[in-house]
């Protein structure tokens, strides 16, 4: 059977990996290529690279790093950050990305999803959504979590899949950085609404959190995390061994 995926996420700024806590307070961590190689060797099933630079220079550094990673690491690579046009898709796909995730770019222009899906296939287009509870309603936030779009999250995700997104990354801003478990309530709702793979993001603090995620919501396909992997709080090899012990299908 298909295995549950473990996905380390690398936020890249000016050629280095950084990780924000609650989207603020960025810390420098490591070289993206080294980290990607290390994670792949330890059993990561896929890698996500987010470009969090805004400058042209930062963007050039990012594509250089992406290329170098794709030359050395032979697992699927997803790229996100600053993707606003199909030219942006083209730019990162040529550097070895397999999938491209859209977030603010799709909020600004939802037709981007469909255009990209027709050009590169649905499997290539990942809809990433930053979601936060506002007065008890799940709302979608844009611009790295700084701007409340007012859109209801489940409706937006359903629409994105309808437009052609082949996979969804659900990042809960409420649980992100808290390290007390994934946002199961939100994830369950998303899994009930769409029939494409769902990647859970935000909140993992321990191996137990991943086990709980896959046990309680069997429709979730993957768990994504950043800092707990970067700082060695959770070792991927150990995590996957424990998943297997808990009879969760996993690639060892």
């Amino acid at each position: 059977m298909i295995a549950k995926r473990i996905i380390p996420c690398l936020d890249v700024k000016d050629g280095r990996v950084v990780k924000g806590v609650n989207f603020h307070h960025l810390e420098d961590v490591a070289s993206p290529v080294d980290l990607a190689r290390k994670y792949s060797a330890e059993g990561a099933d896929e890698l996500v690279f987010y470009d969090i630079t805004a400058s042209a220079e930062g963007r050039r550094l990012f594509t250089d790093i992406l290329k170098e990673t794709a030359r050395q690491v032979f697992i699927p690579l997803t790229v996100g950050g600053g993707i606003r046009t199909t030219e942006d898709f083209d730019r990162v796909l040529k550097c070895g990305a397999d999938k491209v995730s859209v977030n603010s770019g799709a909020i600004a222009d939802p037709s981007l999803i469909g255009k990209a899906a027709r050009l590169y296939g649905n499997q290539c287009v990942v809809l990433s959504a930053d979601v936060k509870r506002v007065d008890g309603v799940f709302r979608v936030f844009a611009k790295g979590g700084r701007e409340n779009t007012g859109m209801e999250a489940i409706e937006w995700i359903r629409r994105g899949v309808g437009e052609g997104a082949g996979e969804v990354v659900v990042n809960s801003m409420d649980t992100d950085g808290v390290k007390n478990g994934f946002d199961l309530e939100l994830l369950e709702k998303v899994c009930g609404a769409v029939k494409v793979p769902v990647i859970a993001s935000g909140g993992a603090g321990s191996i137990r959190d991943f086990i709980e995620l896959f046990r309680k919501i069997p429709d979730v396909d993957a768990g994504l995390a950043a800092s707990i992997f970067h700082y060695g709080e959770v070792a991927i090899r150990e995590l996957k061994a424990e998943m297997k012990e808990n009879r969760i299908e996993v690639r060892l």
Partner: protein
Amino acid sequence: MILLIDYGVGNLFSLKSSLCMIGEEVQVSREPEEIRLADRLILPGVGAFEDAAAKLRASGLDQVIRKEAASGKPLLGICLGMQLLFERSYEYGIHEGLGLLKGEIRPIAEKIPASFKIPQMGWNALSIMKESRILKDIREGEYVYFVHSYSATGCDESLVAVTDYGAELTACVEKDNIMGCQFHPEKSGDTGIRILKNFCEIK
């Protein structure tokens, strides 16, 4: 020298990188003469069958590939490239393939339970049906990376491995010098690299 047939379908960056990594001399081309001179051929592909088959026909590459295949040159199809090796596909209509292998391409939705997501996207285990050169030293249960909504059926003697996605789906085929992987070996970590190496060592 190994040649990746470039007919304008899909991204060859990772495939090329993985072959370079194992020390192969790689050429990316659509020139019939270069295809003729290559030691072995890879037919890649991502996207829609109809479009890819039309591109092969329009460029005359279909005839070139058939001729090289008949000469006994090792040929590996990957993902859509594998599907093109078969007789026909039922992806949005009925479309002729290269007909190098017996069988046809049908939606996986016909076989798998309705609760399963389509496409199958992710790592799934190989279940080996018989010995082959392409899967030499690959063990039962090794995981490879799939992204597909269609799969080959009625492969008969070419079938060498399947994967379980609510139903048995064709994962890998081999008949004489013609081989195919439904999964992406260039994205399947160490297992995928070993499969590509096997292909490069076929005489």
